[in-house]
């Protein structure tokens, strides 16, 4: 038995993988950006050697794939070197996205768990609702998001809530599916045990179904929180895309600013990483509290 170590369990493995990705990224950048340089040279009627192309592929203004250092420079400039209240600060935009993500995730978790509870306990809901929950997820949200926004606006709801609603719409589903499975996962023997106590449905829920569902719930929440983030970003488009990471992405895309797109992308990914890790840490805590036998 060895005690956990930050260096061995986190920094080294993650660092290795990240380094590998960065290496691949550089190679891809050279490969993808080179044709443009050759083209330029061809139009200018000059020959260009590979050693000349190489540095240029890493310093283009609108690269097909910006080199990592370009993105990190941009990230540095837009996070550390800008005041966080500035509209050019990625932290400011991240915060806007984060707030609707968290609200949407919270609402989605509550809704998903509530639906799962209903489905597990009421046969009517199980049979009538589940097919329609599934159907609801196959409705492309981005398609009806503008209508949702318009309708919510019409009844006077604006600001954070419409975006959070879209984020909720996407994130409640994994929770509902996973939680339904989880709430149904207790051993038949344990359900029988509760029956012999003539435990009420709510007692069976709190004392048996819910604890048994925890591994499913934690896994679902990890998926849901990253989907919630995607939802919040998607939701920023039809809300006028005025601010937030989604707006940055859109603007970056609109103006062909690949470096800006990639830095917003990385920021979003980092945000998701943090959120998923948080859920993971909480999940591990709960597991330990619940006395799960370590593997």
């Amino acid at each position, binding site marked *: 038995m060895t005690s956990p170590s930050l260096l061995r369990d986190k920094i080294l493995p993650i660092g290795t993988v990240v380094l590998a990705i960065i290496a691949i990224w550089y190679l891809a950048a050279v490969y993808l950006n080179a044709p443009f340089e050759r083209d330029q040279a061809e139009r200018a009627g000059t020959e260009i050697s590979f050693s000349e192309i190489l540095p240029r592929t890493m310093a283009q203004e609108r690269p097909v794939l910006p080199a990592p250092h370009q993105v990190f420079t941009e990230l540095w400039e837009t996070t550390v070197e800008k005041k966080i209240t500035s509209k050019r600060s990625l932290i400011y935009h991240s915060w806007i996205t984060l707030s609707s993500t968290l609200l949407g995730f919270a609402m989605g978790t509550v809704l998903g768990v509530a639906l799962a509870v209903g489905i597990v306990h009421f046969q009517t809901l199980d049979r009538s609702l589940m097919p329609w929950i599934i159907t609801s997820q196959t409705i492309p949200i981005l398609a009806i998001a503008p209508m949702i926004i318009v*309708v919510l606006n019409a009844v006077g709801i604006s600001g954070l809530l419409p975006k959070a609603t879209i984020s909720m719409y996407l994130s409640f589903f994994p929770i509902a599916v996973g939680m339904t499975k989880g709430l149904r996962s207790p051993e038949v023997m344990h359900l029988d045990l509760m029956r012999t106590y003539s435990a009420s449905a709510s007692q069976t829920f709190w004392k048996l179904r819910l604890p048994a569902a925890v591994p499913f719930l934690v896994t679902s929440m990890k998926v849901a929180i990253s989907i919630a983030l995607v939802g919040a970003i998607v939701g920023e488009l039809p809300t006028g895309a005025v601010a937030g990471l989604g707006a940055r992405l859109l603007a970056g895309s609109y103006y062909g600013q690949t470096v800006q797109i990639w830095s917003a992308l990385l920021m979003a990914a980092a945000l998701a990483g943090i959120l998923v890790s948080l859920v993971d840490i909480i999940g591990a805590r709960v597991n330990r509290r619940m006395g799960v036998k370590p593997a």
Partner: protein
Amino acid sequence: MNGPFLTAILFWLAAWAVNVWLARLKPKNPSVTRLINVIIPVLFGAALIALWEGVTRGFNVPSVLLPAPSMIWGRILSSAHILWADFQQTYLKAVIAGYVMGCGIGFITAILVDRSPFLRKGVIPVGNLVAALPIVGVAPIMVMWFGFDWQSKAAVVVVMTFFPMLVNTVAGLAATGSMERDLMRTYAATRWQTLFKLRLPAAMPFIFNALKINSTLALIGAIVAEFFGTPIVGMGFRISTEVGRMNVDMVWATIFVAALAGSLSYGLIALAERAVTFWHPSYRRRAGA
């Protein structure tokens, strides 16, 4: 007051009552049970649609906001060929290819990563990141890399479906009981034998979770990705174009196709799940329970 609306509400209440009654029935005959299982959601849906029709008519909701179901149905019938072409482009090509690859890569990554704790500790957190790459940002990049046609949409679907599969497979592989693992140890089973004979079967409930979530996610992903550049066919293209043209009935007709396709594929996966994980306690209800 409001005629159509009231009628719809009444219909809805009546349908709900019938459903409650149906759900309470415990027929001895299994085929009757199966029939009831079909009737209930259908009735629920019918009630929902009636309510919708009633609301749109009763309150004269402008059709550019929300068309009545009858109008949508008319559109489905008159534009079936367009809907079919879109379905082929988006579903049969992008969604299926992306779904298979995304789930496959997520699964294989989980298996590979499972072999080495070092890799697991490194890859999973980075996998989290990939998952959260917002589709809004990824889609234009994929169009840039893979072109306008369905390949770029499939790539977006791969990115979206990869993580749920990875996370669920990893969680599932960890879900084996310690006694069963000891059992395989006593057989000096190889890693692969333990994997295939014990840990994968035990992980199936989790894996099916991911397959289900991904089946709807893939459809959303492909459709949204088409907002960012496509040839002029596809469900996402149709939706965004027709919204701009104020043909909202066509939008809903496309949504209907999406919902139908999504529900059917979900249903298929649920059937497969039942067949593969029949042993899971969630399917082992006693008759009386």
